[in-house]
């Protein structure tokens, strides 16, 4: 029992490296996956008796590679297709566990594996599903449940995504510094998408999805491979800070609790501390980027002992910086929250009114606008905005939260 649990963990943690190397050998996602599965089956058979290998990833690569080559040979007997053209460096199948010393390969292998999931033709949901399936090794069932679709539908989505990636061709040459930096940027964005899918989904519907924890694991993995990249430090810190509030984000009924109303004693101190260290490390590089700035903003919330002690001036300044390097209506919207705290609802409303066209289909825009109008006592307009927000809500918790605002407003309007 204990052995099996341990083996499961070892397979999970070795997966990105092993899959990355097998993808390099076989140059085909399905073949790499099959080979990895076969290696895992053999691990489950032999590890309980022989004990764990010293380097599980190297073991899985070696065994997976041999079983994959066997498969290709078996198929070749039935098909006239020359397998050697499909495979790379077949002749050095005997180069055994020396693989584990191959640090340079290992880094680019994992980056490539993550990178194939970020293909620009894939919509965000497919990128997320593919990464969770291929890199994290979540089951199709787990992923389907999180996306609230059937297993068959998710299976089909993943198959289609793989076909697209395969047709587009995977870049196997070792990337130069510029290409590597570009890959890192895309992969970071994809990891953030994975996190957001778990985070913004909102409890209670998706309470048991492991997306957020997986995203943090991937971010840490990326940071381990590229330890001196301040944006990856920022990404990891940002995810840790958001995840640190998990226990405080919903009440016993599954209703959303806003940041300012959260019980801060429920925040996970270990995650916050780790994030603050990463931000300190990133700052030393003096190369700010969007993830670092967002992490710094989240850190200001984490450092405030009470909501009233939040440094809104600094948060406003950080959002202004973020807007300069990454102009976006959503950033402006977030900045408006800080402006509302600093200068009041009128100034914030003036800031977001010009966004009405671009964000007309955005839940948070109407939610915030309604909240500001409500503060100004413009109840009728607030009601309209809240109604629109409810229509755009994607989870019942979001809708319920807005309804609370409306109820409260009606009590205020009635002079209660």
């Amino acid at each position, binding site marked *: 029992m*204990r052995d099996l*649990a*341990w083996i499961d*963990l*070892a397979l*999970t*943690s*070795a997966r990105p490296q092993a899959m990355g190397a097998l993808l390099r050998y076989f140059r085909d996602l399905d073949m790499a996956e099959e080979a990895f599965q076969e290696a895992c089956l053999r691990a489950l058979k032999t590890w309980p008796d022989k004990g*764990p290998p*010293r*380097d599980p990833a190297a073991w899985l690569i070696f065994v997976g590679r041999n079983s994959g080559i066997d498969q290709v040979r078996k198929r070749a007997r039935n098909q006239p297709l020359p397998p050697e053209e499909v495979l790379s460096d077949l002749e050095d199948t005997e180069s055994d566990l020396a693989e*584990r010393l191959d*640090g340079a390969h290992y880094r680019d292998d994992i980056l490539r594996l993550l990178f194939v999931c970020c293909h620009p033709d894939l919509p965000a949901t497919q990128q997320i599903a593919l990464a969770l399936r291929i890199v994290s090794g979540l089951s199709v069932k787990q992923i389907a449940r999180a996306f609230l679709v059937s297993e068959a539908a998710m299976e089909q989505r993943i198959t289609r995504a793989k076909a697209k990636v395969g047709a587009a061709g995977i870049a196997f040459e070792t990337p130069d510094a510029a290409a590597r930096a570009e890959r890192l940027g895309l992969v970071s964005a994809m990891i953030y998408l994975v996190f957001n899918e778990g985070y913004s989904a909102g409890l209670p519907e998706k309470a048991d999805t*492991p997306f957020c*924890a997986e995203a943090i*694991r991937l971010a*840490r*993995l990326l*940071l*381990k491979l590229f*330890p*001196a990249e301040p944006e990856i*430090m920022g990404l*990891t810190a940002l995810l840790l800070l958001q995840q640190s509030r998990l226990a405080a984000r919903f009440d016993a009924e599954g209703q959303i609790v806003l940041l300012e109303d959260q019980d801060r004693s429920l925040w996970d101190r270990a995650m916050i*501390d*780790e994030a603050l*260290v*990463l931000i300190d*490390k990133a700052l*030393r590089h003096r190369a700010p980027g969007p993830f670092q700035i967002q992490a710094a903003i989240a850190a200001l919330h984490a450092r405030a002992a009470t909501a009233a002690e939040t440094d809104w001036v600094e948060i406003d300044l950080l959002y202004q910086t973020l807007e300069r390097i990454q102009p976006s209506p959503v950033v402006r919207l977030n900045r408006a929250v800080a402006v509302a705290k600093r200068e009041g609802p009128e100034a914030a409303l003036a800031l977001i009114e010009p966004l009405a066209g671009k964000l007309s289909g955005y839940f948070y825009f109407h939610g915030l606008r309604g909240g500001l109008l409500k503060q100004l006592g413009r109840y009728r307009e607030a009601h309209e905005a809240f109604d629109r927000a409810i229509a755009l809500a994607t989870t019942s918790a979001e809708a319920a939260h807005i309804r609370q605002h409306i109820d409260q407003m009606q009590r205020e309007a009635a002079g209660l």
Partner: protein
Amino acid sequence: MLYAVLCYDAESEVCAWSKEMDDKVMADLGAVNQRYAEAGKLGPVARLMPTTAAVTVRKGATENIVMDGPFAETKEQFLGFFVLQAETLDEAIAFARELSAANPANGTYEIRPLQFFNPGVPIT
């Protein structure tokens, strides 16, 4: 004699633990610690953050160089330590065995006798 009992394991595995599992391991290790503490034998205990949180200061030609990451890239990482007072090496080994039994991972415990020990001051 004072011994440092140093814990090594693959942090990629430890970081993949669920929160429930992590909490349980910490509680189980805590129970071992408590018995030794009550017997007056256990000094400082620390768990280190992942090596991604580390920086390393090295001597440079003119000034020290601060590098991101741990001292060495290794398959297993130094994850934490316990300071134990034990009469014999066997007693220290017994303590490490208990830690190992409480820890479901394949972590390794290195026992290093202390040459010098400054317990420091209570940190505020």
